[in-house]
């Protein structure tokens, strides 16, 4: 990603209408909830860029 950025991809703010559409937005809250129950069923973690502790699912 840093390499791509260094190559100079430049999108002006007024060109970002579609990027601001709700179907393009990150679903951070939903992903955090999903990560919680998936962690209780799988041996892996991560992918959402955050951490949590404790889980009643255990």
């Amino acid at each position, binding site marked *: *990603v*840093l390499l*791509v*950025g260094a190559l*100079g*991809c*430049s*999108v*002006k*703010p007024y*060109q*970002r*209408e*579609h*990027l601001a*559409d*709700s*179907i*393009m937005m*990150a679903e951070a*809250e*939903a992903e955090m*909830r999903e990560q919680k*129950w998936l962690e*209780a*069923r*799988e*041996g*892996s*973690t*991560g*992918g959402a*860029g*955050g*951490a*949590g*502790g*404790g*889980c*009643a*699912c*255990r």
Partner: protein
Amino acid sequence: MHIRKELVVAALASTWMLWPAVADAQFGVERNLGYTFHLFSDVDGVDVYSHHASAGVDMSRNVSLLLRWTHDTVVIPALDAPPGSQDAVDAITTASRPISNAGDPYEDFVKVRDEVQGTLSFKGARASYYVSTESDWFAQMVTVAYNHGFMQDNLTLSGGVSYGWDDITPVVDIRTSNVPDYQTTRHANFVATQVLTPITVLRAGVEYNQIEGLQHDPYRNVYVDGGNVSESHPRDRDRYDVFVRLSQYLYNRSSIKVDYRYYGDDWGISSHTIGGKLHQYVTDNVVVRYRYRYYSQVPAFFWRDEYEFAGGVDGLQTGDYRLGDYGAHLFGGQVMWLPQGLADISVLERANLVFSYEHYFNSNNFSANVFETGLQVSF
């Protein structure tokens, strides 16, 4: 401890409600509220009912406060065999349960968890405190994070670190010892998000977790060499993952998001996860989403189908299928209602109502249904 927690919650809630009255006179205050109900129901009869509520408020132009509260109720079904017998071994579900006396196993076991998180943001910086309470587990975590945009915000870099400390006090269990223990978690992440074109975004990140302390289920027994012994996992675990996601807008008012994650740890587990989501407007106010996710992992070095010799593997033994070799699938759909423009009511302008259903199953004959519905409003 409970009084202190309630005071903290009351203080944060009061701030959320009263601050806008002070700040309204100076600038336009924005508040948002959200509620989500989540039901997880698996093939073993374990049900998890979760209520998630959130409230956010801009306290000034650069400062915002977000509160989250979660209330989980976990219902673990009664055993249909005497505790400790081969038929009662908890081999599939990870929801092991204590048994305080001989009569307990034949009744459903109900466990409740409450979680509160407060996050204060200032420009690109963020600090949060998280607390979670259960009958046998008290967890706390502090997090600081920072993100910054470069090149007209075409590139956003973010990083964060967390430290969590958990107190574990297993409740009385006739099969295993209930010695108090602890767990600490150190977490760091770094994420880069790059706008590639007016309709394409690429996101990639790396995460690291270092966990120390109790990491096995204190209520789970494992059959080793014909006997019944407590589960035992290593007390240290280093975990890392890298992930990448591409989001692409399509001109028929749809979007597609594909992602991949690689995970590894020093217990020998490594996994690959791939997923995709397709969003589509079916009317100006209704969006449907389809998704699929595939997961595959290799086992921990001490995981065995059956332990034939006393002492397991270097003194370690597990009955946790999550440490084994398996694959899993997750698929489902979601309908989102966006009432923008339907009426001249400002609270609806950025509101949404969501219903979703997903089905999860893996190669261990475990499956689960996941329902979720939620409402978000901003005003």
